[in-house]
């Protein structure tokens, strides 16, 4: 076999992801060019705020999908943690930090529970999480029967703006004017948060044995088992980490809206959108192929598509239709490959 150059190999093994990045780049650049205030910090801040929660939830969905399953509870866990956070994120700094910790712990624990049900109850993930999702929503409604809550204002403002505003709010780095902060001053904080979580949590996970086991399970569970990989641990870890990411989404949502809302419809919408984002990001629903970074890109593609309705003049009553058609076309992109398949058996993996 001819050895391919490493970039060729990378491209070959990551077509889906590369396509997604290209699509996002084109869509986002065009959007900025059309926007009256394109390529400005304000637009970037707005965009990243809007994308943050769905980006986290899409990352959460990635892990179960890599296992070859689906998590229908991610939106609900986001909602649950959103409600928890709306109760806890106020008071002195230590209390807020504790609240954040407890919020993330809630989601992580819920994910852990999902994992245990899937592993020890041996129930298919999609069904198990359909049920636990309902439980999460129920708990959210118990905590917050009606929308509200008072998240610390400064926190909300600081984390939903640029680095400068963050420094300004908390009087750090000479109120944001320090020379060394200049190069970063215009970067939106949510971007930093997402990148931080992706780099500090996802990347190491992927390079750990547990992370690789997740891929192996999705690709061939029997083989992974026979190879002596820690199957149960990896599955539980995947759902737990999924719960953690969903909690990041819920936490951010609470900070962004300074409140909590046990909205069933919204939870459902986030779950479904997370699946779409995962697919758009080049992760295979069959498992074993893809990455949370791809889902991040997929989530942003979903968002950018809806940005266009605000700058183009499109009949409002046609917008849902256009959105649906664009989604359908986008997920059908990969289909061209299957139409070219010469050996029909290759279709049935």
């Amino acid at each position: 076999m001819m050895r391919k150059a490493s970039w060729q190999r990378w491209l070959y093994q990551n077509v889906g992801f590369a396509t997604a990045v290209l699509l996002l780049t084109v869509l986002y650049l065009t959007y900025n060019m059309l926007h009256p205030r394109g390529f400005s910090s304000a637009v970037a801040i707005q965009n990243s705020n809007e994308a943050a929660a769905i980006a986290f939830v899409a990352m959460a969905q990635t892990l179960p999908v890599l296992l070859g399953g689906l998590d229908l509870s991610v939106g609900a866990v986001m909602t649950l943690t959103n409600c928890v956070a709306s109760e806890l994120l106020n008071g002195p700094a230590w209390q807020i930090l504790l609240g954040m910790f407890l919020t993330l712990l809630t989601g992580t624990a819920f994910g852990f529970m999902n994992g245990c049900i899937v592993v020890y109850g041996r129930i298919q993930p999609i069904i198990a999480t359909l049920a636990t999702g309902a439980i999460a929503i129920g708990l959210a409604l118990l905590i917050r029967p009606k929308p509200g809550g008072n998240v610390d204002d400064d926190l909300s403002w600081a984390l939903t703006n640029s680095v400068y505003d963050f420094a300004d709010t908390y009087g750090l780095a000479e109120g944001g004017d320090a020379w060394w902060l200049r190069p970063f001053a215009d970067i939106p904080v949510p971007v930093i948060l997402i990148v931080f979580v992706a780099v500090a949590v996802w990347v190491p996970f992927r390079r750990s044995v547990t992370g690789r086991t997740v891929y192996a399970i999705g690709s061939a569970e029997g083989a992974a088992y026979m190879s002596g990989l820690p199957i149960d641990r990896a599955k539980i870890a995947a759902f737990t980490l999924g719960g953690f990411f969903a909690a990041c989404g819920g936490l951010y949502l609470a900070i962004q809206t300074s409140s909590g809302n046990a909205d069933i419809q919204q939870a459902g919408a986030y779950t479904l959108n997370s699946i779409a984002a995962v697919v758009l990001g080049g992760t295979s629903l069959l498992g074993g192929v893809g990455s949370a970074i791809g889902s991040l890109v997929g989530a942003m593609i979903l968002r950018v598509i809806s940005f266009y309705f605000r700058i183009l003049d499109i009949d409002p009553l046609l917008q849902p239709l256009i959105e649906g058609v664009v989604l359908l076309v986008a997920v059908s992109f990969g289909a061209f490959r299957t139409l070219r398949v010469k050996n029909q058996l290759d279709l049935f993996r």
Partner: protein
Amino acid sequence: GPEIVSGPGADPECFAPWSADTKYFQWEARPAPYRVAVVNGFVGNTWRIQMIKTAKAYAEDPAVKDKISEFKVVSTGTDAPAQLGAIEDFINQGFDAIITIAVSPDGFDRVIRLADKNNVVLVPFDNVLDTDKVMQVNEDQLAMGRTWAEFLLKELEAQGKTSGKILEVRGLPGNSVDRDRSIGIHEVLDGSGGNWEVVQVVGNWDDGTAQKVTADAIAVHGTFDAVAAQGGTTGVVQALRDAGHPMVPIAGESENGYRKLVAQYAEDGLKGISIGQSPGLVAIAMKAAISALEGNVMPQLISVPLPVADYSSLEDGVNFWTDLPDNFFTVNEFPPCGVNISGPAIMAQSEEDVK
């Protein structure tokens, strides 16, 4: 941001303050035409569609056409970040006014702050915010609940009943409108001195759900003396009919289908009252936004009068239409405000005809 000033405000016929202690706002006047955006949330029901069509038609109305240079409507679904994002995007684009139906009564602090910073007039209506920092437009939900209950009591008294069993069909759980309407109903019932047993079921303001839960309630509880339904009232009446339940006084929303049924069965005892949350509210919100941009003094909370009709005042072709679909909402005009886009004009014609 707006200055807090003292009243009275402009055009009090139309922009009635909510109560005596409602604050007044005033923005710096700026020259027309303005750029106006409507940020809707959910879009998959007739009320919202009618609202969007009304908004578009009103933007073309001669009274405001010249004052609007650009008009955009987007629907974001029940997704709070998306709605907040859309509002912020329009602020960034330099729009002058943004009308919105909030997906949640909370969580708008950031966009309110940005709107004030950029001198953008943000007007939530229908689902309003739990804040007094923005100008808002709504009907008084508490009053609606009270009116419903008062009507039922009056009809029951006419039958000689001062106690009995009432079915209350509630709306979406957790929603402030649902809560306020229910509080209004119970206030009046509790205060009446009568002995009323109220059975609550959750109908989600949706005909199908309301019909199903009403049918179940009848199967379990037998007959009721009256029904108060927050929404999905057509479904509720269907359930009464299907179960062979006697026609009783009923309080409900303003769906055309419900009014048709009341008109048809009033003789048989379906003494109904119909009060609607009108999709036409959007036009008043737009009008208020423009008025604010012109520098007028505006009440912080604008109360739009309840459009009430009961079995005695229903008239085909005037406040309901037998030849039109059941789903559309009958109340669409507000003459004191010069909002004269009637329901049939919106729903029965294609868009070209409206223009």
